[in-house]
């Protein structure tokens, strides 16, 4: 079964190697390979590869994988194909906090951490509103996520109006458009504990997620503790979405379209779908980021914008093709 994931893993490595080749300074493939094999070499190629391109590629790969896994988890839990990770309110809460922070003069360097904390705080608020008994009500969760997102979007709009054309306004817009520019190994390392925690939460819930495909009532009948699975999945999704927001700002559509594409490739078995979605999300974001930093070089396109341009037509194509996803 795991063999079906090998081609997807190879695609990620191929796309990542391709992304290492492109950039402001053209470096041939042999030099890239040499730099990869000799990380402590002091040459320019090694510095470009190890200090500039590779951390950024790892960063966007992490973001893509996190968003894709979070989207897959939430779509599976809520049995709703239109759900994406930002439903948890993470992005809207983070956006509002960052917009207000930048307006109040907080250093742009502090915004990722601010976004992470505010995003998780919003997810906790959404979960509290969606709570029913000891579990979560799927409909309430969606309504709470949508309502709070609308509320926080209004705060962002208000902050933009107040910021007018100042530096704060351009920082807010840049963050909303999503970008991995200037990311370092340190940024990636900061998210590893949270990603590890998310994995620790998700892995015990994988069998339950698979059984939930037959419906909540039937899943309860075969012994699934639905409430436990709900909390584990929501907490893991919120952590992953908050990590991605911290690393690259607002990047939409990955968490929505990759789970659909993943189901078409490997089916809906969470044991395969979750790693497949991680690989596909990573490959998509590495590719999109490579295009963003080369298509209008030396300037850069925001990755969130490019992914929306690609994501909407792809999603509509998948949707209109009509074949049932397995």
């Amino acid at each position, binding site marked *: 079964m795991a063999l079906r994931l090998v081609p997807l893993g190879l695609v990620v490595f191929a796309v990542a190697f391709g992304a290492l080749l492109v950039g402001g300074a053209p470096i041939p493939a042999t030099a890239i390979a040499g730099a990869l094999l000799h990380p402590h070499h002091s040459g320019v190629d090694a510095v470009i590869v190890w200090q500039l391109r590779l951390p950024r590629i790892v960063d966007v790969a992490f973001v893509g994988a996190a968003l894709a896994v979070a989207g897959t988890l939430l779509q599976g839990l809520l049995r709703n194909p239109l759900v994406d990770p930002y439903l948890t309110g993470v992005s809207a809460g983070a956006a509002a906090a960052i917009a207000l922070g930048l307006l109040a003069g907080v250093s742009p360097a502090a915004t990722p951490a601010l976004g992470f904390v505010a995003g998780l705080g919003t997810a906790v608020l959404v979960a509290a509103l969606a709570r029913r008994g000891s579990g979560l009500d799927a409909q309430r969760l969606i309504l709470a996520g949508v309502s709070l997102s609308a509320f926080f979007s209004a705060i962002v709009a208000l902050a933009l109006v107040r910021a007018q054309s100042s530096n704060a306004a351009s920082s807010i817009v840049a963050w909303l458009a999503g970008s991995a520019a200037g990311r370092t190994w340190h940024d990636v390392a900061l998210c590893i504990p949270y990603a590890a925690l998310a994995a620790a939460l998700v892995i015990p819930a994988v*069998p339950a997620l698979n059984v939930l495909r037959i419906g909540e*009532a039937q899943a309860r009948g075969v012994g*699934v503790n639905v409430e436990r699975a709900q909390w584990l999945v929501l907490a893991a999704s919120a952590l992953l979405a908050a990590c991605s927001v911290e690393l690259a700002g607002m990047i939409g559509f990955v968490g929505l379209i990759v789970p659909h594409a993943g189901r078409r490739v490997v089916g809906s078995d969470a044991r395969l779908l979750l790693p497949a979605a991680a690989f596909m999300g990573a490959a998509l974001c590495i590719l999109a980021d490579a295009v963003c930093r080369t298509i209008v070089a030396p300037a850069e396109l925001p990755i969130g914008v490019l992914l929306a341009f690609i994501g909407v037509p792809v999603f509509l194509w998948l949707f209109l093709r009509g074949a049932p996803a397995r």
Partner: protein
Amino acid sequence: MRSISVTAGGAPLLDDVEFRVGSGKLVAIVGPNGVGKTTLLRAVAGVHPLAAGTISVDGLKIGSASARERARSIAFLAADDSAADGLLVREVVAAARYAHHRWWEWRESERDCAAIATALAEVCMEQMQERLFSTLSSGERRNVWVALALAQETPVLLLDEPTTHLDLHVAQRMLALLRGLAGGGKTILCALHDLNEAAAFADAIVLLGDGRLRAAGPPTQVLTSPLLDDVYACTIERVHLRDGSLRVYPSGVAPAAQR
């Protein structure tokens, strides 16, 4: 089941219901719509909280058992259908094995495969195991849900309207299967709407009415005319067929030729 009371939406639904089901028995729960048959089954399955009382299955206290422990003793087939989009019939039935695995055991064992195959064969669905569940008719889907309950390999089966959506032939085959399973030692509690199905196949009938247990016992003792008239608020006639079995009909539709 001792003095149990259940509520639905905060309102009392059933009060002081108490009965005992011996192993290897097929017991039908009957009563008018909305009386609490499904809620009672859900309470026995441990997925609906009790307002009062206790339910035990082979010594296992349902109220304090974990979901996994309950599912190893009791298989509960809800009446609600589910689209189970994108799943094959076999994948739906395989979900039954959840409680037999720890969370890190992700692979099907040989015993799982055997239980799934046997359950599919019991409901004559083995030829359809590679079909998409969503493409089946409602009757075929019902069969798959019953197979799922069987694949749990529990000593107790709770079935909410197992013959819903089934044609006459398949419904009779289903009830005969349940009868056979009871003969093999399984304890089966099922909610039924059709009193004649209950009379023909059940060892005992639990009749609910007006929020309480109205009678429990063998069909001939429970399906009595004054009691049924009162519970169903219509005149019901009892007819003994030539083979000695009992049938009940609303007055005016009893087949005179059989009397």
